[in-house]
């Protein structure tokens, strides 16, 4: 019962809050859809290629670095497991 009341409150408060959202003036309009190009792009001052390359390079590097990190931690743990298991085997 309590849960129901809380859930109702939770769901209704955003509805109550449906006031005009705070306005942030001086900003480009929010895009609703992507439109494929139909004419040649205007000349821009900022070259896009370095940004694009950096983005994709970052993604690759991060994935690679993470796999290496997990691999390194894994070999460390596995070596220690082997060491312990041989110690235990020696004792028994």
């Amino acid at each position, binding site marked *: 019962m309590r849960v129901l009341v809380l859930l109702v409150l939770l769901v209704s408060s955003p509805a109550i809050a449906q006031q005009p959202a705070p306005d942030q003036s001086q900003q480009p309009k*929010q895009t609703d859809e992507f439109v494929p190009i139909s004419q040649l792009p205007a000349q821009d001052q900022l070259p896009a290629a370095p940004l*694009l390359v950096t983005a994709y390079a970052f993604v690759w590097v991060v994935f690679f670095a993470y796999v290496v990190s997990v691999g390194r931690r894994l070999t460390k743990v596995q070596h220690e497991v082997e060491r*312990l298991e041989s110690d235990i085997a020696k004792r028994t």
Partner: protein
Amino acid sequence: MPKWFVPLAAATALMFAASPFLIANAPYEATMGLVQKIFYYHLPSAWVFLLSAIVCGIASARFLFGGSPRQDRLAYAAAELTVLFGAIVLVTGPLWARKAWGVWWQWDVRLTSSLMGWMVAWAYLLVRKYGGPGSDKLAAGLALFGMANVPFVYISVNYWRTIHPATSVVPTLPVDMGVALWFAVACFLLLFVLLLRLRVYLEEQRARLDALYLSLDE
């Protein structure tokens, strides 16, 4: 490691290798041109970032209320992946934004709440590492709050006037852009599954090590 791991890893690697070609073939966007192509990796990584936070939250809840160590290992792995994919989102986004919006960063709802969710995941890792005994439960509690943030991040862009594109972009994508996008989404999802399984394996080995140390003490 399960049998499907290596074949899936190989398939995912091939798919990732193929994705740049699909992305290059996708049409340019009208106002943003070349830099918009960051979208094809930015959006899937954002989805996986949120998915990872949800996985962490659900596993944490199951750990808190069920006590299963398997769920705890899953939660830890998912938190690390949340940080990983979150980092990708938070770097590729500003790189795109620099050209598209003219600024690296804006304190609008979507960006701020994403950054906040990322920081919660970091906090989870810090607690696990430095919290001492009982930190697994602490972190699990934290992860639940982090999961509560996820729906907010997703819908924030539809309810507030923000500079970030709304969620209506994806359903209205033209077909040739859609192909590149959904292919990249598949790549990222498969990679997420692979990395999760790998990371959980590390936790399992650590648990095995702990058990060995315990048996040594007896």
